[in-house]
């Protein structure tokens, strides 16, 4: 679990941790700058604490659609060349990614 720091504020250490979680490398300078900027933005977000949301349902889907399904009928696939055309590294029909370990 992350160290929580002051409520509504984010520490440089937290920023580093989140950057790792998000898989985005940051330079030292960026860590400092982002911490400052993110805190400014989080300060602004504090206004939400004032909203009375007791018993209010969260809304994600605005149209209220349900059960949008597709029949189990095969469609043509992309030809292999097109599927792989944007991949920078390939080998024997496979796409090549960096080693895991």
């Amino acid at each position, binding site marked *: 679990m992350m160290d929580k720091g002051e409520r509504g504020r984010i520490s440089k250490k937290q920023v580093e941790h989140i950057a790792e979680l998000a898989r985005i490398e940051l330079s030292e300078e960026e860590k400092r700058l982002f911490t400052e900027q993110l805190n400014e933005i989080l300060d602004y977000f504090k206004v*939400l604490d004032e909203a009375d949301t007791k018993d209010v349902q969260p809304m994600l*889907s605005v149209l209220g659609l349900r059960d949008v399904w597709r029949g189990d009928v095969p469609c043509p696939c992309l030809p292999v060349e097109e599927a792989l055309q944007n991949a920078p590294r390939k080998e024997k029909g496979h*796409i090549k990614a960096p080693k895991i370990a």
Partner: protein
Amino acid sequence: MSNLYALTAREVVSRVTSGTLSAEEYVDAVLSRIRDMDDKVYAFLTIMEADARAKAKEIDAKAKSGKPLGRLAGVTVALKDNLCTRGVPTTCSSRMLGNFKPPYDAKVVERLRKEDAIIIGKTNMDEFAMGTSTETSYFGPTRNPWDLDYVPGGSSGGSAAAVAAREAPLALGSDTGGSVRCPASFCSLVGLKPTYGLVSRYGLIAYANSLEQIGPITRDVFDCALLLDAIAGHDPRDSTSSPTTPKNHVKSIEEPVDGLRVGVPKEFFGEGVDPAVSREVGRGIARLEEAGATSLELSLPSLRYALAAYYIVAMSEASSNLARYDGVRYGYNNLQPNDDWNTFFSRNRREGFGPEVRRRIILGTYALSAGYYNRYYLKALQVRTLIREDFEEAFKSCDILAGPTMPVLPFKLGEKVSDPLALYMCDILTVPANLVGCPAISVPCALVDGLPVGLQMMAPFFREDLLLRAGRVVAEGFQGGWPM
């Protein structure tokens, strides 16, 4: 010949369909105009000259042989560079997709092609649609044709500049928090964000998927209705696409606004809104009243939470929507010897994404992370319900809501880049429509010291017809001319 670029979309369709204008000739004129203008404006990233000429030839042949033509026959359309166009670079103005050529067309692109429109090029934008000024583009900013030292708005700045410089009569942008309406307002154009679900998102490269819609950017409401009718409608490949049959907006646009009840939320004219903007928008609303509408002031108290809720939802969704950019299947890939998966991924994303994108991904990851999910993401979704309830209440006593599109006049390039929060605050009037999902339009209202002011209107779900009708009246009272 030389003024063909000045024709409206409906004039082009009419002439090409009747055979009095050759599509090839028209495309030639448009390409010539783009060559003249784009060095200054920088609206386009890719100009699809060969494709456009080939399509024009096809259309002329079709016209000659008497076959029926589509409702956009011969019209040139500019597309924001986050709309997938098969075989043509679709970059989202990012280094991360600088070399990406999709193997498929977005649904809207398929529809345009079916209606015999001519896709003339892909336009500049804020990187991954994150911005309000088109200044975060990896390829450099677009300039406002009204004053080249000023921003055209964002994130669909390139599409708006292309239309305002009359490089193309029609353009499509995308609107997640105002990205169609803001540049329309800054460039004195009509920009419409349709009801969520009216236009298929299949092929729109996602930034925030519960908020965004593709929308027309045009010179006037008539062209807007024409383009909207061509792209709207259910798509079985988009699960969030509405099954409702769209209205015919071209037909309903001439109807009068007598008895139209215009709600004016006082929160739209509060502090933070430039007094000159308030004044001009007030005059615009007065024009509606002169045409037979009535206005009433009301209050939507939850609007004060809208901007925070919007950014939390948008950034959270973005942090997940942009996770796929790892350079393995497509995109920027700067693999170094001995890189392992995590090291490569982290460094590649640092190099491939600009600072604004990285800021939003980090904040979005934070808002969804264990321990913060309830406080930020879930809370924002609850606030969204509150705002929706305010709107439903308001629409009981009025047919549309009106106010300024932007709280400020267009600003100079570079003026706000170092202050992310200041830029975010510019979205304060546009984000509510995205949170609620209702349609919203920006129409040209006035010029203040030569800089455009837009008037925004919002309506209940699927009432774009009311927006276009009212928009016609507001814009009629303002003849701004063209900057170039």
